[in-house]
């Protein structure tokens, strides 16, 4: 597969992820967009690993996957807790860190 195509797809996914983070107010879709960004990075790793024939990229993908899983678990636990405090899933209402 052509490397430039992979790069293009990856950048597109990343852009979509950023737009989702900025525009969406639902906390869960917000988080989904973050996972999308991680996937874009994964794709880039795999593509370049194939480009240079090196296994290191694949090992990195492994680690990213693990971190994404852990992060998803903890993040969702936090969202559940926030929902219990604020009774909404609107990200704009989660402003307890203001000061």
């Amino acid at each position: 597969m052509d490397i430039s195509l992979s790069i293009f797809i990856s950048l597109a996914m990343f852009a979509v992820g950023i737009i989702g983070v900025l525009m969406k107010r639902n906390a869960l879709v917000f988080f989904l967009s973050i996972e999308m960004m991680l996937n874009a990075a994964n794709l880039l790793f795999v593509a370049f690993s194939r480009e240079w024939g090196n296994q290191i990229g694949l090992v990195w993908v492994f680690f990213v996957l693990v971190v994404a899983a852990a992060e998803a678990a903890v993040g969702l636990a936090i969202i559940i807790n926030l929902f219990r405090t604020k009774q909404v899933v609107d990200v704009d209402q989660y402003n307890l860190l203001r000061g």
Partner: protein
Amino acid sequence: MLFIVCLGLFTPLLGFLLLILTSHVISRRFAYWIACGAIFISLCCFKFLLIYYHQTGMDAENFNLYSWISMGAIQSNFLLHIDSLSLLMTLIITGIGFLIHVYSIGYMDHEEDYARYFAFLNFFIFAMLLLVLAGDLLLLFVGWEGVGLASYLLIGYYYNRPAAAQAATKAFVINRIGDLGLLLGILLTFYLFGTTDMTTVSQLAQQQFSVGAPIITVLTLLYFIGAIGKSAQLPLYTWLPDAMEGPTPVSALIHAATMVTAGVYLVVRMEDLFLMAPLTLQIVGWVGGITSLFAAICALAQTDLKRVLAYSTVSQLGLMFLACGAGAFYSGMFHLTTHAFVKALLFLSAGNIVHMLHGTTEMTKMGGLSKIFTKTHWLFLIGALALAGIPPFATFFSKDLILEQEYLAGFSSLFYIGLSASILTGFYLIRAYCLTFMGSTHLTPEEQQTVQEAPVVMLAPVMILGLLTIVGGLLGFTFYQEPLLESFLSPEVKINAIEKELKSGFVLTPETWLAIGGSVLSVCAAAWIYTRMRNRLGSTLQTVKKAFYINEIYWMLIGLPLQTVAWAITYILEPKFFERSLQWITQATQKVAQTFQQFQNGQIRSYVAWMVVGSVLLLVYLVF
């Protein structure tokens, strides 16, 4: 020698410190002993110094206590200078001071705050001694300010009375105006000569400048401005009548005998400089003469007994300056001495009456007191006649000497002014005597029951002063040879040529007869008018009584604008500008904080947006 001088100088200071530190706990008797004792020790020291001085031949001596300022261009030390002039002044100060301290024991017998009074009185004696013993102009200035401060403290002794507090402030402020002149003079002295040692200054001035040099005229004028403030001459005299709000012994000591004479002392001390500036001497003479006449006219219309005496003091000081203006410094000092006795006598006998009548000084409430105050009224009469210039009392000789000097030195217009002032002196003093002691009484019946003659402790000092008044003239006159005082002062105080003529004794010139005749006439006229008509001779001209409204003019010209400015600053400038600008600063800080607060609104999306912007910038930088 130095020990005796220091003992005499610093004992009153010790007395002051002791009394002021223990003023709440000290007992009455103890306070009296400390205060009078301190002054008595001082008096003995200076008496001893006088004898010693006389024996060793009257050389002036300098004692350098402490080297105060010595930078390259400026030299000034704590220099004490003992010569006949300063010894004369110290004897007057401590002698009359001691008598007044004893008198005050009786005057203050019903006051609770006696320790404060005696402490300040001792402090005043110390400051005045420092002033006359100083051999250095800067040290003299220290004493000068000290007596000003003591005057303020003592005039405002009855601080509960608003009139007294205002009078004290007024005295201090007006003195300050004069002090500015003196301070400028001292600075000019530093600039010209590099030192303020009086003997050095006199010598250097004679070497470096010629007679009539403009800079010396300016210098002496500045000194004279200081003297005007302290000695209550014409532009700056208004504090002295108001200063009568203080206790009567204070008026006797400070505002008759000692502090107000400091100006005359300064002029006489710096006589070498003044003789080099004939223009200043003319100004001195004219100021003194006009003040003298003006104050005498004002005294004619006063109804307050102490104010009559205050204006009389101003008038006599004018005469002393008149003498200095003609170059007759010795006559000025002689009149200073005799006037000190007489004025203290007058004030203390007035004080007897005031004390016994519980503080009234209005003559309209008195009258016919000669039956009650059998001894005091004789003493007052002696004082009044003496000051009027009737021979053979002391003041006659000194006043007459001044008038003769004036005439013979060629200032005939000033002679006539001085003569009229002297004639008026007799008139108003006898008027005061008649209104107070003669005629029918205005006392209420119960006052008539309770008022009686003053106690011995108050009478005795007055009697001593009366005695001095009668015989004091002997100090300065004899028929054929050089009088005592003159020979005493002659090494220091220049006797000018005319005085040398009179040195051979007392001569009865036509001017003398004119003066004697005028005084006798005025005395008899006043006695006749005021025993018969009892002040029915027209109601007192309000203008003259208020001293031609000079007080009010000063208030409108100077006091009122300053007060308006102060009001404007307090009510307009300060709230609108200062507080507004402070408020503006706090508001601006708050706005800045609010702007920055928007970065921390807790919105995750905003945080992410700023991060994205930052990463875009980084990307652009790294890639392109």
